């Protein structure tokens, strides 16, 4: 009697943690793991998702590797990701460091600088489309008013300017999250460290290099990995501003794949290409963690 009760109690303690994680894990299993497995499954089929299911093996995987438009889109995605993430971190670091100083109106500055994060991608995409518009767009109007250009420039419809514009807008939209994370991290660093360094005659740069960076490293690693994969998968802003055009000058992989699936109904190919994206994102995570491991 005593024995069974004790056993039951022990079993209950052992199961408690699983009780806590069950709802989340069940949802993830059903709505993250299952769809992904299903997506991988589709990548082996020539299918319309209804009644045509022809097994084609690895054909789409091989096809994607020689598909110039897919490879081009990957290259565009790399350029896009590197520029945007660099922009996020440079701005995030600068603003967070200044906001951490003893300055007046800090809350107001911080509140304003966070604003871009609070607006939906859709809103930001159309706002900048309007600002850069050829007919009545304020940028062209101002440039013409001051005689810098004689005819309006199609900022988003010229291949030379479309990609830089999309990159700038993406930086503008996304830096606040990085800034907030870095700010939160900086505030956990004890001021004693800086004061001690100051007594020892450390310069600003030295303090930054030897106190701020090491203390922030764990936070930075996580947010760097997440920001990189989020930007790598960016869809909405680019889709609504240029739809990948003009030509293929802003055609990142997310848009290329979306078009394959929903404009050309090549579901199998799109899924195979998605699997490549998944693998690349995973490798990015692994590499960053290796590089930034503290040992």
């Amino acid at each position, binding site marked *: 009697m005593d024995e069974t009760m004790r056993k039951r109690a022990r079993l209950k303690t*052992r199961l408690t943690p699983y009780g806590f994680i069950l709802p989340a894990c069940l949802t*993830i299993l059903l709505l993250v793991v299952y*769809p992904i497995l299903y997506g991988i499954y589709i990548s082996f089929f020539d299918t319309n998702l209804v009644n045509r299911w022809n097994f084609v093996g690895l054909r789409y995987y091989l096809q994607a590797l020689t598909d110039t438009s897919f490879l081009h889109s990957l290259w565009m995605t790399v350029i896009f990701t590197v520029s945007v993430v660099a922009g996020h971190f440079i701005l995030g670091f600068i603003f967070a460091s200044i906001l951490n100083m003893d300055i007046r109106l800090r809350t107001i500055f911080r509140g304003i600088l966070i604003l871009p994060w609070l607006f939906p991608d859709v809103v930001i995409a159309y706002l900048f489309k309007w600002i850069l518009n050829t007919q009545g767009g304020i940028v062209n109007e101002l440039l013409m008013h001051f005689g810098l250009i004689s005819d309006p420039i199609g900022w988003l419809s010229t291949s030379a300017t479309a990609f830089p514009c999309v990159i700038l807008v993406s930086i503008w939209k996304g830096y606040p999250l990085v800034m907030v994370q870095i700010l939160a991290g900086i505030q956990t660093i004890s001021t004693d460290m800086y004061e001690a360094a100051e007594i020892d005659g450390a310069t600003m740069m030295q303090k930054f290099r030897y106190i701020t960076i090491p203390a922030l490293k764990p936070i930075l690693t996580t947010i760097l*990995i997440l920001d990189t994969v989020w930007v790598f998968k960016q869809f909405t802003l680019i889709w609504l501003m240029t739809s990948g055009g003009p030509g293929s000058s802003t055609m990142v992989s997310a848009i290329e794949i979306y078009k394959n699936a929903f404009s050309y109904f090549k579901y199998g190919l799109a899924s195979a290409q998605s699997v490549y994206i998944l693998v690349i994102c995973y490798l990015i995570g692994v590499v960053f963690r290796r590089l930034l491991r503290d040992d």
Partner: protein
Amino acid sequence: MTKKTKNNLIRGIGYLILTVGCLCVLLPLSWMVITSLKSMTDITMTKGIELFPTGPTLENFVNIWKDYPIATYIKNSVVAVGGSTIFGVVCAALCGYGLSRYSFKGKAFILSFLLVTQMFPAVMKIIPYYKILVTVHLNNTRIGLLIVYASFSIPFCTWMMYGYFKSIPTGLDEAARVDGSSAFHTFLHIVLPLAVPGLVATVIYAFLQNWNEYMFASVLMSDDAKKTITYAISTMADAYRIQWNYLMCAAMISSVPTLAIFVAMQKYLIAGMTAGAVKE
């Protein structure tokens, strides 16, 4: 240069950078506000530069409300996003607590898997979601979108809550257990109240993420009566001629909820993120 003047110089540069940064944020946003107050003639007829509306008007806000079922769109968004935020954050808080307080088989795997889920391309999930929702007759329903959105926010929210719970000393849990409190009771009445800043930051994050979502809403909610506000804006622009003043109006309306939530809860945000940005 004395130390004091040097410090003043640095601070001066700091103010300068912040001011420039704020202008870069505020100028585009104020253009949205100005455009929304302009009449269509102001936008199409003016030759040359006309920064401000000739007669600022709120009639766009009235007209747009008449021409489009804005209230329905907002309701759809509120139900799907609000519901998914509650559902997602409850799951995330439970899971984050479990992960932070117990060690058990598979814990390390779950923790790293939470990060890996962020790497799954959205396009890859969209086809299966569509099929699943059609199979269970939940496509074009707010409940369907609610569940999908919850699955987006759970992984990262769990991660945030895990970080916050880890920053709370376990001594209280021990004391409560000695006093005979059950595990769930300890979680709900002892630890959770201490985790409110983290919880609020997580709520803000989940709400923002899903309120802003576009791609899945556009595929899963094709029915006009079921559109979310963010998706509805993009369909307004698809029309034959874009009416920028209407569009900017709708854009402002759709941004009100996130702004309101942020203003109401912003003092928690930085504090909640502090521990939320965790190390592994």
